[in-house]
């Protein structure tokens, strides 16, 4: 953006923002989307750039008004400047992508080589009668645009493999494992370890699910699946046997998205070298810690 347009943007941001005094008597400036879109058009930039500039000036995009007691404007800027890659845009990924977009993570990379089919309708947030037969990655991009125009999305309608992973994932702050099989998860973990990027693993079967955050030096998936060569043995996997009803990916995706937020915002407790295990049928959520054994 040119210096002239930058000055124009600053003036427009201040003139179009509205001051709101909340119930506690605190004053803050907010920018409604209708003006964010106009400013972006006038300055020849993206809504993403408008949000970033607004947040830097302490002006909160109005869409985040109901975040601000929990996520400060400074933190909203940290999210807007972050890059998260979501690998898989199905049961887990669809929910994660929508949650990240609504929360305001500014840059999303979506990787999925599949297309939506009828049996995805029971659980996959981005799957509907109009998206059947279409690329999951491209539908993710289209959905995010309708949810939050302030998010930049790179959609790759390809299957992740050892040779294409680094090109698509380099530069990410956090990567989300939203895949649906064990062997692909190991391919992703290898790539994350090589790139030095934390990985948020999530998996499920039936009404049960698990979440684990894996930093590059952690043992990671080996704790959950043993050695990769023996992980599937050609037999039917638990998820095939038990199926995947809608509620479980929704909850596991929420927990994964929280791990992303905690890493970016440096808040809370991260499930590192531990498995957060949930059982929706019994209503239990437990942490299990992995210890090193000889």
């Amino acid at each position: 953006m040119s210096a002239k347009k930058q000055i124009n943007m600053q003036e427009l941001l201040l003139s179009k923002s509205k001051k709101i005094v909340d119930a506690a008597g605190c004053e803050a400036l907010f920018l409604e989307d209708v003006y964010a879109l106009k400013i972006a058009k006038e300055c020849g930039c993206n809504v993403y750039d408008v949000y970033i500039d607004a947040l830097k000036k302490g002006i909160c995009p109005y869409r985040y008004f109901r975040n601000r007691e929990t996520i400060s404007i400074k933190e909203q800027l940290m999210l807007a400047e972050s890059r998260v890659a979501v690998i898989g845009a199905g049961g887990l990924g669809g929910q994660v992508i929508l949650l990240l977009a609504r929360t305001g993570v500014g840059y999303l990379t979506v990787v999925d080589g599949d297309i939506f089919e009828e049996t995805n309708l029971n659980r996959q947030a981005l799957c509907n009668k109009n998206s059947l037969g279409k690329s999951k990655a491209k539908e993710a991009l289209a959905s995010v645009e309708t949810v939050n125009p302030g998010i930049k999305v790179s959609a790759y309608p390809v299957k992740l493999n050892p040779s294409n992973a680094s090109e698509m994932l380099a530069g990410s702050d956090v990567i989300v494992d939203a895949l649906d099989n064990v062997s692909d998860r190991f391919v992703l973990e290898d790539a994350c370890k090589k790139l030095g990027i934390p990985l948020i693993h999530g998996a499920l079967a039936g009404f049960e699910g698990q979440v684990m955050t894996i930093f590059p030096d952690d043992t990671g998936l080996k704790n959950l699946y043993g050695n990769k060569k023996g992980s599937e043995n050609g037999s039917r996997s638990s998820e095939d046997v038990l199926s995947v009803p809608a509620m479980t990916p929704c909850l596991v995706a929420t927990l994964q998205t929280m791990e992303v937020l905690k890493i970016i915002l440096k808040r809370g407790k991260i499930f590192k070298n531990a498995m957060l295990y949930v059982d929706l049928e019994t209503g239990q959520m437990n942490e299990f810690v992995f210890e090193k054994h000889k």
Partner: protein
Amino acid sequence: MPLKILLSSTLRKYPPGYDPVKGISFSVDMEITVEELCERINIPCDKIKIVMVNGKSKPMEHVLKGNERVGLFPPIGGG
């Protein structure tokens, strides 16, 4: 010595009438390894990927001493 055994996912089909809320209450006279325990309650050891004793991971050879909660997990990979 009493033990409480909790099974996850596909392991739940092995003990007849398994109740996921209550788990299995089991009592043994002497120390026993996790592997021996699984044989006693007819859970195939090759189906188990993770063993948690009182919330911490242990190998199948881990010796149980009583008054412990044993969680047994197969691999799950769906998404």
